[in-house]
């Protein structure tokens, strides 16, 4: 039962979790790229999206507790993702409007945003706890979970495959969005130089809100994916939020592809580290790797700048 | 751009004849064969330069010639890929500057100003200069917190020194005003005062006259001469040829990262390579400068943050 025997299984576990980190990390990175602002309340966007998707899927599940199959499963996952994304988007929109925009208009110091975000986060977490209860909420299986195929003897379950595939699809979609569309162009322009972007006729306010919403959509959908395996609860956001933020920094904050790479890498490091050492040291290892990488590459693995990334 | 090649042929090995005659002990700084590249862009291409103690040496050249890059290499903001810079704080103490951090170089006695002014905008004029004067002070946090005698004495000396420098640059009436609230010309002078506060033996001025009016330019010329009179060597980047001609004792001309000429102001002005370099650049500002006409202020916005990143 050495490490090498379990290597592939751990890799698959790590990639699944890492892809979720990556999806959340994108929200941090997008906002950071555009505003040079760490959106600490992003974890709550994730949490709210998660609840939204979970409730929607639960409402549509058959009452008898049977596990749906076939198209019904696909539909349920799609609905959950969609509703999760919408809730996340709405939450991000509201967050930007209420907690950030008024500050932006007052030229507040950057740290004021941090505190505003912490406040908004406290509010959202505890209100969610009050409304949805403080228990973890389980999302029953939406499809028959079994081994789809094996890689070097390691099982790949339907669940991890779905999560990984959807996450990767979202990552690629976002990458295309930023790299290839007019909207993406605007985002990159603002990220590079907001003042110049204004002169070029880019509506910066609009880009900012869109950036928040896009990050929220991803986080919301990611939240639903998360809830599929890990349940949802009012306090679920904090830990993955910190992890995703770490992932974003690891890859080079403000850099879309960096966030993806950072997320996957962090997932793997945790997975391997948790196996090799006592699992409660998992985070210690993850942070040590982060520090080591930043010592070697002070701007993260792929460097900064949303503008140049894609 | 065929002209470039033409200049290139003669220059690299060429030495300033006067400099060659100078005994090393007389030098304050010598740069040898500096090369600085950013990716594919070559900013300095084997620049050598010597400055005698007490001399006012002007570095001129068209925009993008590498003047500010040269400054950045001398002050440690950039590390050249090749070459060395020797600095003599005292005549018998040659010190290599390449590889040292900027603050260490400042402490050795090389101070600078910036092309786009970089004051501490929310501090008062006095505080700006004080930060310069305090470089040489040694007291630490304990001394500061306990108000130990040596700390208080140092503090007092620093203030006195700073006030005298403000007086020197003619800003005594602005002592307690915010740096950012001063008019442009005065900000330039404040920056010089701050640099002088570090008690340099070599002062690097990056376009001190940019954006100032003729009267201020005249004052500035007087100031530079006065500073040199106190024994401080001055290395000057300037576009305004009238100013250069009036204060500089020697001139080095850079173009495309190479030294294309050096000599006394008069010699340089007559140098055909220099004239060609300036005329070859269509930029009206530089042409005007070469012709000895009034300086056209460099576009602040464009120049902003260009010098050091």
């Amino acid at each position: 039962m050495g490490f090498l025997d379990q290597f592939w299984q751990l890799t698959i576990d790590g990639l699944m979790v890492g892809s979720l980190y990556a999806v959340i990390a994108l929200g941090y990175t997008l906002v950071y790229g555009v505003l040079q602002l760490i959106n600490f309340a992003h974890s709550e966007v994730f949490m709210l999206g998660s609840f939204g998707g979970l409730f929607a899927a639960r409402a549509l599940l058959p009452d008898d507790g049977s596990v749906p199959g076939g198209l019904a499963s696909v539909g349920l996952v799609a609905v959950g993702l969609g509703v999760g994304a919408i809730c996340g988007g709405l939450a991000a929109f509201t967050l930007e409007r209420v907690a950030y925009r008024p500050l932006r208009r007052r030229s507040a110091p950057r740290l004021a945003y941090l505190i505003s975000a912490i406040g908004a986060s406290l509010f959202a977490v505890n209100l969610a706890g009050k409304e949805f209860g403080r228990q973890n909420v389980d999302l029953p299986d939406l499809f028959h979970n079994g081994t789809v195929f094996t890689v070097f003897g390691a099982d790949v379950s339907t669940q991890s495959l779905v999560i990984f595939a959807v996450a990767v699809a979202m990552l690629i979609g976002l990458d295309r969005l930023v790299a290839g569309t007019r909207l993406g162009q605007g985002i990159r322009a603002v990220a590079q130089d907001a003042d110049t972007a204004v002169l070029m006729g880019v509506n910066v306010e609009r880009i900012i809100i869109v950036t928040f919403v896009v990050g929220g959509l991803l986080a919301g959908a990611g939240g639903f994916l998360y809830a599929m395996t890990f349940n949802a609860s009012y306090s679920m956001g904090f830990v993955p939020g910190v992890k995703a933020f770490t992932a974003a920094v690891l890859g080079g904050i403000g850099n879309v592809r960096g966030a993806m790479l950072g997320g996957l890498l962090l997932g793997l490091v945790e997975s391997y580290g948790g196996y090799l050492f006592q699992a409660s040291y998992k985070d210690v290892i993850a942070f040590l790797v982060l520090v080591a990488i930043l010592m070697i590459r002070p701007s993260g693995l792929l460097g900064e700048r949303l503008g140049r990334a894609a | 751009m065929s002209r470039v090649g033409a200049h290139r042929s003669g220059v690299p090995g060429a030495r300033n004849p006067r400099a060659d005659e100078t005994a090393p002990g007389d030098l304050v700084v010598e740069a040898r064969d500096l090369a600085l590249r950013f990716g594919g862009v070559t900013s300095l291409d084997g620049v050598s330069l010597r400055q005698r103690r007490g001399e006012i040496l002007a570095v001129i050249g068209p925009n993008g010639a590498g003047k500010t890059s040269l400054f950045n290499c001398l002050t440690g903001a950039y590390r050249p890929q090749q070459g060395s810079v020797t600095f003599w704080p005292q005549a018998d103490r040659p010190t290599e500057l390449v590889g040292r951090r900027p603050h260490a170089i400042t402490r050795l006695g090389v101070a600078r100003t910036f092309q786009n002014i970089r004051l501490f905008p929310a501090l008062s004029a006095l505080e700006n200069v004080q930060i310069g004067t305090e470089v040489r002070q040694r007291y630490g946090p304990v001394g500061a917190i306990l108000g130990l005698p040596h700390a208080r004495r140092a503090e007092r000396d620093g203030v006195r020194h700073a006030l005298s420098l403000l007086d020197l640059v003619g800003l005594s009436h602005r002592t307690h005003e915010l740096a950012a609230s001063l008019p442009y010309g005065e900000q330039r002078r404040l920056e010089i005062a701050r640099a002088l506060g570090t008690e340099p033996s070599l002062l690097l001025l990056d376009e001190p006259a940019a954006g100032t009016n003729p009267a201020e330019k005249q004052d500035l010329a007087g100031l530079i001469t006065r500073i040199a009179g106190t024994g401080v060597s001055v290395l000057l980047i300037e576009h305004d040829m009238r100013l250069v001609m009036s204060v500089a004792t020697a001139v080095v001309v850079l173009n495309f990262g190479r030294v294309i000429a050096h000599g006394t102001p008069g010699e340089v002005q007559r140098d055909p390579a220099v004239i060609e370099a300036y005329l070859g650049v269509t930029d009206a500002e530089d042409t005007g400068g070469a012709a000895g006409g009034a300086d056209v202020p460099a576009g602040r916005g464009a120049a902003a943050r260009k010098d050091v990143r």
Partner: protein
Amino acid sequence: MRRRPLLGAIALATAVTLTAAACGSDSDGGSSADGKKTITIGFQGVLSGDSQQLGLNALYGVRTAIAEVNADASSPFQLKLVESDDGGSADQGPTAAQKLIDDSKVVAVVGPMFSGATKASEPAYTQAGLLSVSPSATAPALTTLGFKTFYRVIAPDTVQGKAAADYVAAVLQAKKVYSLDDKTEYGTGLSGVLEAELKAKGVAVTHDGINPTKDYTSEATKIIAAAPDVLYYSGYYPELALLSKALKDKGFTGKIASGDGSLDPQYVAQAGAAAAEGTYLTCPCGDANTDPKAAAFVASFKKVNKGAKPGTYSGEAYDATLALANVFKKLGTDVSRESVASAFGAVNFQGITKTVAFESTGEVKGSNVFIYQVKNGAITVLGNTSDLIKS
């Protein structure tokens, strides 16, 4: 000048809300209608933060008991509750305790709940001579630290850990046990006793600890790779639920067992019946939800708490409160901090989780550890450990 009307509005609205809320919370209490004497007890527990649910479980248990006492016409007094939140942390413990101590009407306290908060709070209770009965603090050391007014209605980890080890070794016939704890004081305390006992019995033990996050996928891989006969988790049900899910997905074939922190119907709800099926749960208590005797408690709990079901520590808190009421009844008119503190040690009260009676140290008497198992999606009692081992 800029206008910020909306922001002003938000501020005002919040102010109004706050005031309204403040008024709302002040409106309860007062003297009872039928002129009965009112006795005030305090509750100190985890009412904020990540472990809030455990605090609410206990608080609801206390409220249920109080509602029952107050509804009882034969009761000579009415009970009133003062709540104090310590967030489960040592930092806030002294302040939370002091709040109850300052309220001179409070004659006894149910709480604190977590061992850390208990260690931080008890010196103050001892000094004030205010009785505190913890429904959930299981750290073995607590009764040895010189806290004079401290009692607990839950057996310490030592009792449960030992019994659990006996059961795992003797009945489940485990040769290889994977002992996992959640790195809380409760978890490490329990796993420490369990492991020592198992090793003494010659069972091979692998130890690991996790931080209570939510991602146990790789931990499941690790457990399966170790191929234990039994996994014993020392911690709380939300994590065990996720762990069970992950283990089921990966096809773990060993048995899963856990302690009283996981004895909660929520475990099954959160893990899903399929993943939870077959899990063994040990508890030095009778479980209110499964014990037929306690059906009345479950019903009244739901009634008092808007449909909420009893959870971990609900029963203990309920018992603690009723034991207090029992003492008040005995004391008659002389109910004061001193009298309650001195009389409580002699209480003998049949609760729903156990018989509440104390050693001189404040430790609850008796050490019956029951084994439960999830069968058909419901937690059912298998019996007393000692009986199960004999048979």
